[in-house]
C-alpha cells in the first residue's frame, strides 16, 4: 500500500527524537518532562493505530515499504516494511510504552528525565526491530535495544543490579554474535542483506543447520528457552517495574519474532530437521519451568519463570508445525499452531506486563517482593485484589481472557502432531493454575498478616487507569481474538507455504 507519510519511520524516530528532547529538557521541570514523555508515547501509539487502520489484511506482502541506500558499498539499505507478523507486535510495543511511562510517574524519583528518555528511545529501537527488512538494520536495532535496557536495570535497579545487568548483557550479546556471523555468511552468498532475499536463498542442508544453530543461539537466549533462561529471573528481580514490563512484554517477543522471521523462512529444511529438538526444549520449558515456578518465594521470580513457561508455547507452536503437516497432510492444523503461538506472544505481553505492574504496586508500598511478607492484602486493597485476580486467572489461561487463546490453539494443534506432546503441554493447565493461584492465595487472601499490610492503601486513580487499560485488552482479546487473527492470517499462511517447500541448493 502506498502512502505519503513514512509511517514506519515515524514509528521509529518519533519516540527516539522525543526521548532525546526529554533528555535535554532535564530534571528541572519534572512535571513537564513527565507530560512530554507521555505525549510522545501517546503520539507513537496513535501512529501505530493509524498504521493498523491503513493496514491491508488481505495480503501477505510487506506494506508501507521504505527503502533508501544506507551503506552503498555493502548494499546495506534503510529498508522498512510491515506485515501481519510485525504489526501486532508494534501495536503491543506502543501500547505498553504508554503504560510504562504512566507506571513510572510517581515511583521514579531520581533522574526522571533519563528514565523516561531511556524508555522512549528503547521503544523506537524495538519498533525498528519489528519493521527492519534489511538484516544489518535489524542487527543495528537489535543490539541498540540492549543499551537502554542495560541502563534501565543498571541505574534504577535493585541492590544486586550489577550482577543481573552483566549476566543479561553477556548472555544476550553472546547469542547475537553468532547471529551476526550467520548474517554475514548469508550476505556473502546472496550479495544482499534484504531479509526477503535471504528467505529465497537456496542453501544445502548442512549449511542451513549451521545457520539455524547460530540463529537459535541468539533467539533462544532472548525468548528465553531452557537451558539458557537463567538471566531472565535475575534481570526481572533487579529491574524497576517499567523495565520488567518492557522486558517481559516486548523483549522476550524479539526471540519469537526472530524465529519466525529468520530461522523458519531462511533455514526451513534445517528447522524441519531439527524440530524434534525444538519441541523437546519447548516442552521442558512448559513442564520443568512450571515446576520451578512453584518453588519461588519472590513474586517477580515467580512471574519470570511463568513467562519462560508461557514462551514454551510460542516455540512449541512454531516448530510443531512440521510434524502436524507430515501427519495430517493439511496445512490447517499447522497454521493454527503458528497463529496460536503468535497470539500467545501478544497476550503474554499484556498479562505478564500486568502482573509485573501488580507486583510493582505492592513493592512501591511494602518494599518487598517476598511472598512471605504478605498475606491478606485483599482486606486493605480490595480494588487491587480484583484486578490482580483477573490477571492471575488470565495467567492461568482462563477462557474469556487472552491467555487462553494461544494456549488453547497450540494444545489443539500439537495434538495433531502427537498425543503426548499435547499431553505434556496441557499440563500447564494444572501447573499454571497451581503456581499463580497459590501465590495469589498467599499474598492476597487470609487475614491481615502484619501491620505493614494493615496500613496498605488501595490503588490510586493512576494505577487504576493502568490496570483498567490492561484488563480491557485482556478481556477484549479473550472474548474476541478475531481481529488479531485477521491481521496475521495471510502472512502466516504464506509463511507456512514457504517453509514446507524445500529450498535446498548447492553452493
Amino acid at each position, binding site marked *: 500500500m502506498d502512502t505519503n507519510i513514512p509511517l514506519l519511520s515515524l514509528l521509529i524516530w518519533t519516540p527516539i527524537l522525543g526521548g532525546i528532547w526529554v533528555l535535554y529538557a532535564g530534571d528541572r521541570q519534572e512535571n513537564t518532562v513527565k507530560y512530554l514523555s507521555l505525549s510522545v508515547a501517546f503520539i507513537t501509539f496513535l501512529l501505530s493505530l493509524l498504521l493498523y487502520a491503513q493496514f491491508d489484511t488481505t495480503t501477505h506482502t510487506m506494506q508501507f515499504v521504505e527503502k533508501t541506500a544506507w551503506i552503498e558499498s555493502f548494499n546495506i539499505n534503510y529498508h522498512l516494511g510491515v506485515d501481519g507478523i510485525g504489526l501486532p507486535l508494534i501495536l503491543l510495543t506502543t501500547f505498553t510504552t504508554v503504560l510504562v511511562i504512566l507506571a513510572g510517574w510517581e515511583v521514579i524519583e531520581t533522574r526522571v528525565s533519563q528514565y523516561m528518555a531511556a524508555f522512549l528511545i528503547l521503544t523506537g529501537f524495538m519498533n525498528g526491530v519489528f519493521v527492519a527488512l534489511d538484516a544489518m538494520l535489524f542487527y543495528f536495532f537489535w543490539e541498540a535495544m540492549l543499551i537502554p535496557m542495560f541502563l534501565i536495570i543498571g541505574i534504577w535497579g535493585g541492590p544486586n543490579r550489577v550482577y543481573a545487568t552483566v549476566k543479561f548483557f553477556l548472555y544476550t550479546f553472546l547469542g547475537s554474535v553468532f547471529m551476526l556471523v550467520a548474517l554475514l555468511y548469508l550476505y556473502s552468498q546472496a550479495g544482499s542483506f534484504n531479509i526477503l532475499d535471504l528467505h529465497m536463498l537456496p542453501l544445502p542442508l548442512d549449511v542451513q543447520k549451521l545457520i539455524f544453530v547460530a540463529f537459535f543461539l541468539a533467539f533462544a537466549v532472548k525468548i528465553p528457552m531452557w537451558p539458557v533462561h*537463567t538471566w531472565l529471573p535475575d534481570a526481572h528481580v533487579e529491574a524497576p517495574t517499567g523495565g520488567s514490563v518492557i522486558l517481559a512484554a516486548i523483549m522476550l517477543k524479539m526471540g519469537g519474532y526472530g524465529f519466525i522471521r529468520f530461522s523458519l523462512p531462511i533455514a526451513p529444511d534445517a528447522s524441519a530437521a531439527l524440530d524434534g529438538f525444538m519441541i523437546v526444549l519447548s516442552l521442558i520449558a512448559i513442564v520443568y519451568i512450571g515446576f520451578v515456578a512453584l518453588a519461588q518465594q519472590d513474586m517477580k521470580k515467580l512471574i519470570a519463570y511463568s513467562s519462560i513457561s508461557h514462551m514454551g508455547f510460542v516455540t512449541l507452536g512454531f516448530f510443531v508445525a512440521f510434524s502436524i503437516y507430515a501427519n495430517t497432510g493439511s496445512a490447517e492444523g499447522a*497454521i493454527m499452531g503458528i497463529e496460536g503461538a503468535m497470539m500467545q506472544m501478544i497476550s503474554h505481553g499484556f498479562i505478564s506486563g500486568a502482573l509485573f505492574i501488580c507486583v510493582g504496586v505492592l513493592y512501591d508500598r511494602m518494599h518487598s517482593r517476598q511472598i512471605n511478607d504478605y498475606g491478606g492484602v485483599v482486606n486493605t486493597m480490595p480494588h487491587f485484589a480484583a484486578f490482580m*485476580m483477573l490477571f492471575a486467572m488470565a495467567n492461568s489461561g482462563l*477462557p474469556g481472557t487472552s491467555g487462553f487463546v494461544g494456549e488453547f490453539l497450540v494444545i489443539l494443534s500439537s495434538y495433531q502432531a502427537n498425543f503426548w506432546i499435547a499431553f505434556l503441554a496441557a499440563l500447564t493447565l494444572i501447573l499454571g493454575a497451581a503456581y499463580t493461584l497459590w501465590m495469589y492465595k498467599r499474598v492476597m*487472601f*487470609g487475614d491481615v498478616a502484619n501491620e505493614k499490610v494493615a496500613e496498605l492503601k488501595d490503588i490510586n486513580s493512576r494505577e487504576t487507569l493502568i490496570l483498567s487499560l490492561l484488563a480491557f485488552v485482556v478481556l477484549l482479546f479473550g472474548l*474476541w481474538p478475531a481481529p488479531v487473527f485477521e491481521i496475521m492470517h495471510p502472512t502466516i499462511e504464506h509463511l507456512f507455504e514457504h517453509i514446507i517447500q524445500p529450498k535446498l541448493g548447492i553452493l
Partner: protein
Amino acid sequence: MFENMENIYLAIVIAPLLGSVIAGLFGRVIGRAGAHWVTIIGVGVSSILSMVAFKYIVFDGGEEFNQTIYTWLSIGNLDINVGFLVDRLSVTMMVVVTFVSWMIHIYTIGYMHDDPGYQRFFSYISLFTFAMLMLVMSNNFMQLFFGWEGVGLVSYLLIGFWYKKDTAIFANLKAFLVNRVGDFGFLLGIAGVLLYFGSLDYVDVFSRTAAVEGQTIQILSGHDWSVMTVICICLFIGAMGKSAQVPLHVWLPDSMEGPTPISALIHAATMVTAGIFMVSRMSPLFELSETALSFILVIGAITALFMGLLGLVQNDIKRVIAYSTLSQLGYMTVALGASAYAAAMFHLVTHAFFKALLFLAAGSVIIGMHHEQDMRKMGGLYKYMPITWFTSLVGSLALIGFPGTSGFYSKDAIIEALHHSHLPGSGFAYFAVVAGVFITALYSFRLFFMTFHGKERMDKHTWDHLHESPKVVTVPLTILAIPSVILGAFMIGPVLFQGYFGDAIVVSGAHDVLTEIGKSYHGVWGFTLHAFKAAPVYLALAGVLTAWLLYIKFPHVPAIFADKLGFLHKLLLEKYYLDKFNQAFFAGGTRKIGQMFWNIGDVRIIDGFFVNGTALTVRWFSGIIRTLQSGYLYDYAFAMIIGLLLLLAVFVHHLF
C-alpha cells in the same frame, strides 16, 4: 413474538451478566438493595424468558435454534464461533438453572443479610448464572469449555468468599486445581475431537461419527485404541472433575466452606451437574464406545456407593448433604453409563430441586442456630422452625425416593435401567445403586432426626433465640418444595418413554434400556404401584426405620457401633485416607519436585556450573594469560625467538 427467538436467547444470557457487572462494578454506588434488585431482576428476566423458550420448544413444537452469534476467531477454513444451540435438552437445563438461581438470589437476601460482601456475593452468583447458561446453551466445544471453566472460576471465588478463613481459601484453591485436573483431560478430548472430526461445532461433529467410528490411535506404541474410546474417556475425565466423581471428588465436600446459598446453587443443583449434561449432550459420541460407557458405569457406581457411606459419619449438616450430592451424582453417572441419558437428565432435574431445597433448609437451620453447623448441637427444632421442618421432610423423602415424590421416579428409573443393561460393569453398578438406597435413607433421616427431633442439645443462648427464618428464606423453600414432590410424576412418562429429548440424545439400539423398560410401562400409577413389588422401596423404608431406631429410640447405640467397628469408623471418618494421600503425594510431591528442579537444575547445574562456572573459567584462564603480558621487553623478545624457532622447525620439516 417468536419470529425472532435469537433476541430472546441473547437476553437470557445477557441479563444475568449485566446484573453481575452492575452489582460488581457499581456495588458501592447502588448500595445493598440496589445490588440485590438489579441481579434478581436480571436473573428473573432470564428465568421467565427461559420458560417462554421452554414453552415454545417443548409445548408449541417450535424450531430448534442453532446459530452463530459471532465468530470468535477464524483460521483459514476453520471458524471457531460463539453460538447457541437451544433444543429440548438445553432448554430444560436453562429452565432449571435460571429458576433455581432465581430462588437462591431471593433467599440470599435473608442469608447474607449482615455480610459485608453483600454486593460482591450477588455479583458472583449472577456471573455464575451467566457462565452456566453459556455452558448449556453452547453449540460448540470452545464455548462449552469457556462456560465450563467460567463456572469453575465463580465456584473458586465463592468457596473462598470468606477469604479470611484459612479453611475457605484452602478449599477454593483445592477445588480449582482438582477441577483443572479434570479440565486437562477435557481439553485433550476436545483436541481429539478437532483432529478427527475437523470441527468444533456439535452438529458437524455429530454428523461425522460414522467416518471416525472405526479409526484407531496409537498412544502407546504397539497398542491400537479406538479413537472414540480415547476421546470419550478424555471428555469424561472433565466430567469427573466438574461432577465430582471418584477420585476427583475430593474438592466437593471442602467446597462447603462457602456460604450456603452457593452450596445449594453451584455445588448441588447446577454446576456439579454440568458433567452429566455434557455427557448427555455428547451421547452420539459416547454411544460409539462401550469401553467408555463401562468406565463411566464403574466410576459412577463407586461414587454412588462409597460416597454415600461417608455421609453416615459426618456431623456437619452441610457435609452430610455434600456427600449425599456426591452419591446422587454417582447415580446420574451410572445412568449415563447404562446409556439411559434421559434418566440421568431426569434425575438431574429432580435432584436440582430437592437438593437445592435441602441445602436451603439446612441454611435456614444454620441461621436459626447462629451459624452452628454441628448436628450434635441441634435437635428438636421442628417446634421452632415448622416451615423449615416440613420442607426438609419433603426434601428428604424426595431424596430417599419415597414413592410418589420426584426423587422416587427418577431414581427408580435409574435402578431399572441398570437392571436391563448388559454392559460390562452393570452388575456391580446395579448392586451399588440398590445398596445405595438403604444408605441414602439412613444418612438422610439421620440428619433429619438429629436436627429436628430428639433432645434439644443446643446451648441456652441459642435456644432462647430460636425462631423460624424470615419470609425471603421460607418462601423459596416452599416454592422449591412443590416441584420436589410433583415434578417426577409429570416428567417420567414424556422424558423417559415418549422421546421428550427428541434428537438431542442419541441411543444406539444395542444399549437402549429405556425403550426396554418402556415396553412394560403403563402410566405413572402402574410404575408407582409396581415399585412396591421391588426391593428398593423397602430398603428405603428400612433405612428410615434404622435411622429412627439409632438416633431417636436408642441414641446411645451409634457410639457402640463406632467403638466396636473402630477400624471401619476411622476409615470413613478419614474419607478413605484419600485427602491425606493427595495432600502428601500430589500436593507435597509437586512442591518437592519444584524445589528439586529449582535447587538442583537451575541454581546448581545451570547457573552454578555452566553460567557462573564459565565466568570463573574465563577469569581463571585470563589470570594465566595475564602473566604472559608482563610488560618486560626481554619476555617478549624471548617469546619471539621461541616462535621463530618453532616456525623454522615446521618449514624445515615440510621442505625435507
